[in-house]
């Protein structure tokens, strides 16, 4: 079943059209890549989907719901979660609290319950803690639970961001350059992780990445964006042979 359908999406900044006539479709449990040269408009597409920017035109239908005009937090409530190109963790908070915040969405007690410390509060807190730890374990961060997020090395920060996004229990996970700043080995294990969480949590994943080993390694389908326009879409092996893509993006054929 189609999970995400985007029709005729437009977004301009001042005179600059960052995204033009963007049409896109994605099935449940698909893993799709969005690639393209720097400044092509990929992050902008993500920002439009998640409500950070309001599109000038177009529709974003997620599981039958039009997301256009919704506040970011309600889009998250619909089941879309993301990471950021420039990592945005809650730096001064512990690793565990970072994830717990993402669990807040499903909190099971009221403000009054919190103030009165009702049994529901203790039960709810225990559940949040349990959930948060579960997501940390997936990314092998459980023994860093009490570290401040800002003190983690870069690679772990990226992993924490993904686990935080997962904690909102999305059905669509959007990753903006998850492997940036990782070395090939780390990228490799990230690749495995992405595949694993997709299976475990039954999600669809949409990702932007410039590291071709990752994109070609995990993505089932790829869209290529250039100057705000889709210039190609298809299976990885098709994409890498499109001359237009090679010219605009890959440079030469990958070995």
């Amino acid at each position, binding site marked *: 079943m189609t999970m995400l359908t985007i029709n005729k999406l437009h977004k301009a900044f001042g005179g600059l059209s960052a995204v033009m006539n963007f049409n896109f479709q994605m099935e449940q449990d698909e893993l799709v890549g969005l690639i393209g040269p720097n400044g092509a408009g990929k*992050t902008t597409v993500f*920002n439009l989907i998640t409500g*950070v920017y309001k599109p000038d035109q177009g529709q974003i239908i997620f599981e039958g719901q039009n997301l256009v005009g919704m506040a970011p937090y309600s889009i998250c409530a619909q089941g879309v979660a993301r990471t*950021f*190109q420039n990592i945005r963790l809650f730096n001064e908070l512990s690793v565990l609290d970072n994830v717990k915040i993402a669990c807040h969405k499903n909190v099971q007690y009221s403000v009054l319950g919190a103030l009165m410390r009702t049994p529901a509060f203790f039960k709810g807190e225990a559940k949040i803690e349990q959930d948060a730890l579960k997501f940390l374990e997936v990314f092998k961060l459980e023994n860093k639970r009490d570290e401040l997020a800002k003190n983690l090395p870069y690679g772990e920060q990226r992993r924490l961001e993904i686990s935080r996004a997962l904690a909102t229990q999305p059905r669509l996970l959007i990753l903006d350059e998850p492997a940036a700043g990782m070395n090939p080995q780390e990228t490799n294990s990230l690749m495995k992780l992405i595949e694993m969480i997709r299976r475990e949590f039954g999600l669809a994943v949409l990702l932007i990445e410039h590291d071709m080993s990752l994109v070609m390694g995990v993505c089932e389908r790829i869209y290529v964006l250039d100057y705000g326009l889709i210039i190609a879409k298809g299976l990885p092996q098709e994409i890498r042979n499109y001359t237009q893509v090679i010219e605009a993006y890959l440079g030469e054929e990958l070995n």
Partner: protein
Amino acid sequence: MQELIQQLVNGLSLGAIYALIALGYTMVYGIIKLINFAHGDVMMVGAFVGFFSITLLGTNIAVAMLIAMAVCALLGVIIEKVAYRPLRNSTRIASLITAIGVSLLLEYLTIFLLGPNQKIFPDTAFTVKAYDIAGLSILNKDVFVFVSAVGLMLVLQYIIKYTKTGKAMRAVSLDNEAAILMGISVDKTISTTFAIGSALAAAAGVMVGVYYGAINPLMGIIPGLKAFVAAVLGGIGIIPGAMVGGFVIGLLETLVSGYGNSLYRDAVSFGVLILILLVKPTGLFGKDTGEKV
């Protein structure tokens, strides 16, 4: 109609005073993102230095203003070094508190040394002339502050936009570590910023002295607050914004007093200010650059 024009004249000259104070405020504010609550008090010190250089040294107004500017520039540099620099890598709100501390210190040190009573600016310093133009009363001092405000705004804008020092200031304000990597000395740049900002405050102080005839140790509090409001209203750190913000507040207050109810002057002008901000959350001239995500 005539009355309206007279009110506009009133508003512009009141606004010019606010603008003058707001210029230095917004500059420091723009560069180091410090809400310098002591700015109004530096203005007060400037007014007193001007006062003493006229009464004790017998200088004329121009020299007095230069001396005041020089003294306050130095004062500003010292304040920065002692009270703000150690906090440069801490939260902004921490330096806000030291700014409150510095403000109290300047006020009460002055009271301690000179007493809380007002001092009368000698009227030999500036001969006030009134011009009657088509039934409007316009004073030479109105023209003087208005021209100074606009002139200083232009000079400041030029410095910041086009000179090397100005660009260094902006760079430091955006990312001081990256600025260092360009070869910019952050300490020097910030010192310069404070020197200029404080000198402007001093100039404003002397003008306030000339304009209203009396100065006192607590004279900086309210104008300091209004200048802060003007700076924010115009858009934080934007030089022309501060000037326009000053004029807007001056005009607002004047119009409320003149045509509304003077008893509600501050309430109404603050209310309008909030409305403006609600429509334009980054101030009149602030660009909503919106953080790129």
